[in-house]
Structures are given as structure tokens and as C-alpha cells.
């Protein structure tokens, strides 16, 4: 009889169990910061829920979460529940989860290993309802959040958000190349742009181009009020994009 011995971190198996209630996972990613991932994630998820889909929204920007700001949630006054795990906060027809409920908007500087640990913990502990779609907002860069997002979510589809600035294009091209190598299903959204300037970039990396969103100055005023964001010109542009993949 041969004996085997193994040391394990059980959380990834736990995460698989927890995510088995989710039909479709859409990660909103961009290697470049400041391109509008968080606003897009929140408004896209809200629009999907208004169309009748059961939608979850997860903030994986562990050291710099921002979705609660867009949704207008004070993390000190509301907390996730507990029922065979952590149950997300219900807000505006969405199930919402973020580490901000535990860091309480304090600075949370972490090295990469800790970021990955936090992601594993959240995925293993969060008990989503039966969802049609889980929208995952991520952090910029190609570091722990991006790598863990691509590895831990089975069948994840990626919506890449980019602006037409040369800095953004240079950065995004690396993400698209990575996603192509790993054969992820991927889409490109052009944000804060006056035209369809990234169509060729999308084509080069066999990415479905979903459309362009103009720069709308009023968006800043609506941050914290998801209803206003959804009904704004920005929201209407996101809805046109959402209609193509929902």
C-alpha cells in the first residue's frame, strides 16, 4: 500500500463550490488605470439586472476598492450577512461584495501574496445566490489581481476597457496579447473617446469590438447615484454595449 502526503490551501476548491451557482462570469479588466473600469462595471451590472438578469457585482480591486463609491454605499453602515458563508449586500437589484466591508475604507497596503490571499478568501467565503451573471471589477496592471482573476474564475469572459490615448493603447496591447495566448473570450470597450479608434487594435487580437463611449463631463456628478448613472448619456452608451453581449 503506497501512502501519499499533500499540503493544501483548501480555498480554491471552496471557491469552485461557491461559484458553481453562477452561470456566467464577466471580468472587467484593463492593464491601464483610470480608463473607467469601475464605472463601466457598476453601470453594466445595473443595466443587466434591470433587464431581468440575476446579477452579482464583485470588487476585486483589493487594495483600492471603488465600486462602493460608485454605488453610493457607506461601508461603515452596512455589512454582508452570514448564512453558510458570507452573503453579499443587496443593493439596487444587485448582490454586491467588496473587501471594503472589512477594511472599512482604511488604507490597506498589501504585497502581492496578501492580495492573492484576500482574493482566495473572498471567493471561498462568499455565497452568491443563483446568478445569471457575476461582474468582476479588477485592478489595473498585470499583477496579482489580473492573474488571479484569469485563473480562479472558471470560463471567465473578459471585457477590456481602453481609452484611445497612446499610453493606454500601449498597455492594453499587452493585455490583449496575453488574453489571446491564453484563449480567453474577450471584448473591447473604447471609453472616453470621440470615435471608433480602437477597431483595428481589437481586430489584430481577435477581440470582439463592442463600441465606443464618449467622454461625458456630467458622469463625475452622478458618482454615488447609480440610478442617475444608468439613465445618463454614459449609461445609455453602456446599455448599447451591454445589449451586444447579454
Amino acid at each position: 500500500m503506497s501512502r501519499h502526503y499533500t499540503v493544501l490551501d483548501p480555498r480554491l476548491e471552496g471557491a469552485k463550490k461557491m461559484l458553481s451557482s453562477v452561470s456566467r462570469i464577466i471580468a472587467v479588466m484593463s492593464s491601464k488605470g483610470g480608463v473607467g473600469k469601475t464605472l463601466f462595471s457598476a453601470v453594466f451590472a445595473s443595466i443587466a439586472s434591470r433587464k431581468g438578469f440575476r446579477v452579482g457585482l464583485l470588487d476585486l480591486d483589493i487594495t483600492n476598492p471603488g465600486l462602493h463609491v460608485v454605488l453610493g454605499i457607506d461601508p461603515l453602515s452596512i455589512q454582508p450577512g452570514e448564512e453558510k458563508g458570507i452573503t453579499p449586500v443587496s443593493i439596487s437589484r444587485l448582490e454586491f461584495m467588496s473587501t471594503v466591508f472589512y477594511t472599512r475604507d482604511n488604507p490597506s497596503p498589501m504585497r502581492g501574496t496578501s492580495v492573492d490571499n484576500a482574493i482566495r478568501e473572498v471567493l471561498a467565503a462568499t455565497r452568491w445566490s443563483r446568478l445569471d451573471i457575476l461582474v468582476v471589477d479588477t485592478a489595473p496592471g498585470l499583477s496579482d489581481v489580473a492573474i488571479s482573476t484569469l485563473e480562479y474564475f472558471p470560463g471567465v469572459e473578459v471585457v477590456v476597457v481602453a481609452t484611445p490615448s497612446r499610453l493606454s493603447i500601449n498597455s492594453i496591447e499587452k493585455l490583449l496579447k496575453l488574453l489571446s495566448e491564453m484563449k480567453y473570450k474577450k471584448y473591447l470597450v473604447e471609453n472616453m473617446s470621440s470615435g471608433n479608434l480602437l477597431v483595428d487594435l481589437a481586430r489584430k487580437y481577435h477581440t470582439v469590438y463592442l463600441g465606443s463611449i464618449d467622454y461625458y463631463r456630467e458622469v463625475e456628478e452622478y458618482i454615488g447615484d447609480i440610478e442617475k448613472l444608468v439613465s445618463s448619456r454614459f449609461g445609455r452608451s453602456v446599455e448599447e454595449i451591454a445589449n451586444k453581449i447579454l
Partner: protein
Amino acid sequence: MHEFALAQAVVAEVEKIVEKGYRVEKLRIYLGELQSVDREVFEQYVSMMLREVQENVDVEYVDEEAEFSCRVCGYKWSLSELELDEDEREAIHFLPEAVYSYVKCPRCSSRDYAIERGRGVRISIEYSE
């Protein structure tokens, strides 16, 4: 309970091994002091779920003291040196990495420190053909 989710994760690992046709001889569960899992509740969930997967698994629980070390000044400290209020303890229970939001190095006040041991739940499994 959050303990349910942690127990579910542990037993899922055992299940994966059993499904491959092995027999699990020993399951050792390390409980990190930082996460401060409710041991009694957790044990109940583990034994309840484990019965569904395989009878007579020898389970051993090992408490692991938390230890931190500062990357800036090298100071090492334990959880007992810290003064955390109930809300902070609860936040850390759910997400051990929340410690970075509430705790600084006692010597140099840096938040750049490592959780050397005793973070959360980890396991080792001995199994045979």
C-alpha cells in the same frame, strides 16, 4: 456561518482525493490564530460534511499562533501584543488581510509586514491507494 464555508472548502479537498479512488487516512487542519475560527462550530461542520464523503477519517486540529515580522525594521511580534477592538477582530476574522488596515509595526509603525504564520485555515492530507 462563515465557518461553514471554510469547512466546505476543507471537505471539498478531501472529496477530490476520494473521488480519484484513494482512501484518506489522516486530515490535519491548521487553524491560524489571526482568523480565530470558532473551533467548536467549525469542527461540527467538518465532521458532518466529512461523513458524506468518507467514514472514519482521522482528523487532527492544530492551533497555529500568529506571528508577524516587519519588512522595514525586522521586528517580530505576536497577536497578543496588539490591541484590537471587537469590530477590528471581526473584520480580520472574515478577511485576515484586513489586519493591514488596523495594525502597524509596534516598533516603526510601518504597514509593510509579513504574516509569517497563523493566518487562516490550511490542511495536510495523508492518503493511500
